[in-house]
């Protein structure tokens, strides 16, 4: 997949070594364009601060990427003794947030510890687990944490249920099960407030890489909490976006995706065997409204590799 895309969009242009050779379009821009998406990207070397960006300071909708900030606040509250991560929480079958993975797809009452709910939230983007945890820590607390870290554009204004409800209401359908169908219609997609960064959970590519870099440098919380967060981000199962750009056994990829109609995101950290580590945040909106767009998913990985390749040119 990656090779096919690189062949199609990148004939003989070196994005890193000869930036002046091609006066035309930024090669990352061409990757996004040929995948039928608009892209926003920021990548930074966690240790030396070198950076690459494309519309890196424009506000973007986070979708499920907001779960990273929620996970951080969960651990900060545990550090302060406000909650116990091993505390068991009952999640009744009757009250599940939709989403198709994890508890949302399970049929029976469940009891899990807070930290295992956090695992489901990060590994398979479990919306039910996220809403249980957000209700527990409070969205004001998450925003206060973001203020404290200097991430002032990043805001968590909605939980997953509110996000999904807004899709149903804006699409004008009575039932949640009709949302997928309705959102294949470009006119419906055009009026979804869930895709408006002024309304929905939001950030910028640069603020997300700052957050990740702080987590990887043990600055966002205590070292044990940051290690626990890094562990969960490495356990995310999805191979199709950021990880697809790095199909190499000796490269570690950790990340968190976010998905809404036409919107495909992933933020994460890529770690090379020589010790280089790079935070990267990629946000895309597809022009087409089809749900299945593997080229759009893979463009996230391809563009991320291009950005990191540029950061590594000095090696």
């Amino acid at each position, binding site marked *: 997949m990656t*090779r096919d895309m*690189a*062949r199609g969009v*990148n*004939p*003989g*242009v*070196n*994005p*890193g*070594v000869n930036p002046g050779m091609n006066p035309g379009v930024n*090669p990352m821009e061409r990757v996004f364009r040929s995948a039928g998406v608009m892209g926003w990207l920021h990548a930074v070397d966690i240790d030396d601060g070198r950076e690459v960006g494309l519309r890196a300071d424009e506000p973007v909708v986070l979708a499920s990427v907001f779960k990273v900030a929620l996970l951080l606040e969960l651990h900060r509250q545990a550090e302060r003794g406000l909650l116990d991560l091993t505390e068991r929480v009952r999640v009744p079958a009757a009250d599940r947030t939709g989403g198709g993975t994890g508890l949302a797809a399970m049929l029976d009452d469940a009891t899990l510890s807070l930290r295992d709910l956090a695992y489901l939230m990060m*590994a398979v983007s479990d919306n039910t687990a996220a809403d249980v945890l957000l209700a527990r820590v409070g969205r004001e607390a998450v925003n206060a944490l973001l203020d404290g870290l200097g991430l002032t554009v990043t805001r968590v204004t909605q939980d997953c249920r509110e996000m999904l409800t807004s899709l149903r209401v804006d699409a004008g359908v009575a039932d949640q099960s009709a949302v997928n169908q309705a959102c294949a219609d470009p006119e419906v997609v055009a009026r979804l407030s869930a895709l408006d960064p002024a309304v929905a959970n939001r950030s910028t590519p640069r603020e997300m890489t700052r957050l990740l870099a702080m987590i990887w440098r043990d600055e966002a919380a205590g070292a044990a909490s940051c290690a626990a967060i890094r562990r969960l981000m*490495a*356990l*995310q*199962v*999805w*191979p199709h976006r950021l*990880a697809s750009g790095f*199909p*190499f*056994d*000796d*490269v*570690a*990829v950790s990340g968190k995706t976010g998905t809404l109609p036409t919107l495909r995101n992933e933020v994460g950290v890529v*770690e*090379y*065997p*020589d010790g280089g580590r790079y935070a990267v945040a990629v946000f895309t909106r597809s022009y087409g409204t089809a749900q299945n767009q593997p080229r759009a998913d893979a463009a996230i990985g391809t563009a991320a*590799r291009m950005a990191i*390749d*540029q950061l*590594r*040119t000095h*090696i």
Partner: protein
Amino acid sequence: MDLVRHLGYFLVVTEELHFGNAAARLGMAQPPLSQRIKRLEEELGVRLFERSSRRVALTEAGRLLVPEAREIVARVERMRDLMSDLARGDTAVVRAGVPADLGAAVLAALIAGFRERRPGVRLSLTEMGTAAQVTALLEGRLDVGLLRHPVAANGLAYGPVLVRHPGVLLAEDDELTAWATVHLGDLAGRDLVLFSREAEPGLYDDTLASCRRGGFVPAEIVCTDRVEFALGLVLSGTAVAFGAPAEVPGVVWRPLAGTPLAWRCSPAWRAEPGPYVRDFTSVAVQVLKESAGMVDEGVPPAPRVAPRPATGFLA
């Protein structure tokens, strides 16, 4: 008894496996040759040949004696040559084997460096692969060599081990030149031009094993020890090659991410190194470091496999 001369007769008989032919080659009659072999057998206390009516065959003891005898004869010849050179006032000679891909600049620096240290000694260089060097060193036809590891040879002693990490040579219109660093896995689907397994058995196997580990299994491997031929294949886009940057228009060099290939080499000799061999070794180590980009071998990093939930082994 002149043991060395008798060993010489023995070697001629082993080559002919016929006393009459061997005697003719030695310019002597058959009975005195048979007599001398018999004396050698008595001296060593073993039978060296099975003599049946029309056939002469080596015994087990005879087979074991062959390499030992060859070495002794060669070394004695070498000693005589050296001494007679000195007696005649000719310059002494150090015979050194070097790998084929050393390059003109390195070769020139090697000769100049040795000449500076030993103006009265002639350095006779022969281009040879590791396998040929091992044989020549063990048989006394070389005084010192530059071997590429891994080497499986008993009876050799080694100087310092130097290492270099080759990059990949690509045709300039190869799409991979877009990257500042290339992963082994990126090379999938391409053919490889590599030194021959006959010349470099250890390094050949080692290099291909690293390629497989990295996801590169070349469909075809073209073997050559001629650098120009290899570059021609690269230039035409037929194959990729590993090595140092080449100053050839149309060929682009890229480092391999994570330095998955480590090519090691060291000076080697048999038994005690004489003063000339010691001088050659120190000059070679210095030249390889200064002109061939080699470094002292550190602790090699363990190849790692970063686990990924979706694409790793599930059990």
